[in-house]
């Protein structure tokens, strides 16, 4: 006799403890939600993990992981789902690798609406499809009401680095040019504008995007890019300081050259923030030799995710490894690490 299973109520249903218990309810959640939307041949094998072969003669591999706890879960321009896919793809891509596969682990809070979970899963599936990086394995846990915040998602990605590509901060040399791929601060401001105690009207959308395509195009043109990093939490200032410390060189950037949308600048003005410290989820910072800079810039600008790219500064010899900025006024100041963080959970 064929047993009838009532389908998940994806309209009004909620996550309950049984969805994490290892029983039928969990299997149903995985089947009807995750497997259905993430569908790909590796996942379809229903193994405990993903099993796949590497291309013949594969070079070095890259592995990166990222947890996502953003609040609110849905924001202008994206949601925790696509963010969790883009974030890890970008971390892999910043190593100069071509991202191949992703895993996704969910911590769900009891009572979380299944309709919201469906939206998140669909958004992840779409992001993975667009980036060409399938989600091949995953995990689900449920915690009691009050012990989570809706949903937390951890994704891990692996990728392959082509022979001859070697991106790392120690490649950075005095004289290198510093490039950014576009307008800074969109993600942070989009999130802040939707905070419960901070509602202001804005048309700014998160820039969340997978950068693997842009990175591939950049490496095609300039295989000798010295280093890449995506300026997420802590913004551009954090990346510059991390690279200054790691390379032992100083950096000088030019305020006038830094692309910031006027709405973002205005929101930052209102909130007393500096766009240099505001998070991005679809931008990168690149370092390359001065003679490669114009070529690299042209390639970035030719890509839809790099249309507003700019050369913003250069690396200098400075044993203090300070990051300085020439202000629009012609004076100089330091761009230090951010002090504390008053606006938690932006990614």
């Amino acid at each position: 006799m064929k047993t009838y299973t009532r389908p998940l109520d994806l309209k009004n249903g909620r996550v309950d403890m049984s969805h994490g218990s290892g029983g039928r309810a969990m299997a149903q959640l995985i089947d009807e939600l995750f497997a259905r939307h993430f569908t790909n041949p590796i996942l379809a094998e229903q193994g405990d993990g993903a099993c796949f072969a590497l291309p013949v003669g594969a070079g070095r591999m890259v592995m990166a992981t990222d947890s996502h706890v953003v609040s609110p879960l849905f924001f202008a321009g994206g949601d925790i789902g696509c963010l969790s896919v883009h974030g890890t793809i970008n971390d892999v891509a910043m190593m100069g690798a071509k991202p191949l596969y992703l895993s996704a682990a969910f911590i769900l809070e009891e009572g979380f609406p299944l309709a919201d979970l469906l939206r998140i899963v669909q958004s992840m599936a779409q992001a993975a499809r667009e980036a060409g990086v399938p989600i091949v394995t995953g995990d689900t846990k449920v915690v009691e009401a009050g012990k989570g915040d809706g949903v937390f998602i951890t994704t891990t990605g692996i990728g392959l680095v082509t022979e001859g590509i070697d991106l790392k901060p120690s490649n950075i040399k005095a004289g290198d040019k510093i490039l950014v791929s576009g307008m800074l601060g969109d993600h942070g401001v989009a999130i802040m504008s939707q905070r419960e105690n901070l509602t202001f009207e804005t048309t700014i959308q998160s820039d969340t995007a997978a950068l693997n395509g842009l990175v591939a195009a950049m490496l095609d043109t300039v295989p000798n890019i010295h280093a890449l990093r995506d300026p997420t939490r802590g913004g551009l200032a954090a990346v510059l300081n991390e690279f200054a410390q790691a390379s032992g060189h100083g950096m000088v950037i030019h305020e006038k050259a830094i692309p910031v949308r006027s709405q973002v600048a205005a929101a930052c003005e209102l909130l007393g923030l500096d766009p240099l410290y505001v998070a991005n989820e679809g931008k990168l910072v690149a370092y390359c030799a001065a003679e490669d800079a114009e070529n690299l810039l042209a390639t970035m600008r030719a890509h839809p995710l790099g249309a507003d790219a700019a050369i913003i500064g250069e690396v200098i010899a400075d044993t203090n490894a300070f990051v300085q900025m020439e202000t629009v006024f012609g004076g100089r100041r330091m761009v230090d690490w951010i002090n504390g963080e008053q606006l938690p959970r932006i990614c």
Partner: protein
Amino acid sequence: MKYIDEFRDGELARGLAKAIAAAVNPAREYRLMEFCGGHTHAISRYGLQDLLPSNVRLIHGPGCPVCVLPIGRIDSAIALATQHDVILCTYADTLRVPASNGLSLLKAKAQGADIRMVYSCDDALRIAQDNPQREVVFFAIGFETTTPPTAAIILQAQRLQLSNFSVLCNHVLTPAAMVHIMESQNDPAAVAIDGFVGPAHVSTVIGSGQYEGFVARYQRPVVIAGFEPLDVMQAILMLIRQINDGRAEVENEFTRAVTREGNRKAQGLCEQVFELRETFDWRGLGEVPLSALKIRSEFARFDAEVRYQVGYAQVPDHKACECAAILRGHKRPADCKVFGTVCTPDHPLGACMVSSEGACAAHYTYGRFRVEVVAPVDEA
């Protein structure tokens, strides 16, 4: 950004820098105190010192409300949140200020106290309305700029007959602090101050007329300036001209917002709700007479000090901390032994390192490369 970029125009700045260079008398020094943290921040953030001749020295004053808030007051706020189980609402910068016993509001929050960051005191009132079963206290700090909104929410709480809302009032007054700085000029170690860049937003409330008595008594020019970098440059030029002419007048660079009378309505609200404290302990400056406000007795039920019988115990600053001398212009941040070593923006010991508007924090965050860069700057 319209109405903002116009005040940050690099060309105009270079023009003003030339005018300042032409105006200064190379035979003398000009020691100018910008009272407000907002000015300190603009000066540091735009690197204005680089545009000024070397004999124009800017001294960062005590006009940073978070910096001058004494430790004992933060201890009181923490006690309210931990011992009286109130929801304590506060402006963000206050969260990180180190208090006694290794605590801060942020650390007390991590230990379970219900402390919430608000952007406006209205939010605190809304939290009180949303949580009728809880007591809500707004930790009010700031100069004359943030005082009228606090007065307004107390009046609104009265109209709404809210019984679970009160204010821990720490509002302080600018002119009293300026007087205190001039009185301490008699100290032989004091750096003589030749003129003041007067407050921007504070002056929109109190009016430029409030400085006329000060100028007459101490014979030092005051030029009220907006917080944009061009405002500050223009005010510096106006101060240099006054000093060269031997004049001591109140001049208003910030005419787009400041009048002689100020904001009468805001003043009226404050007058209705607050009265002068005989004395108030300022972090870095010590006891300053008639320099702060308390809530009038007819609003006692909205006064957290009365409601919870909050006491005040003075807590001395760290012994090595030079904030008191820095806030008076006697010393520079880099003169302090602990600056940049044990005292940093991440682990501030003293008042001036606490807020981004503080003199030490601004120097650490934006300016320390000037002192520490030893390697030649190679523009390869």
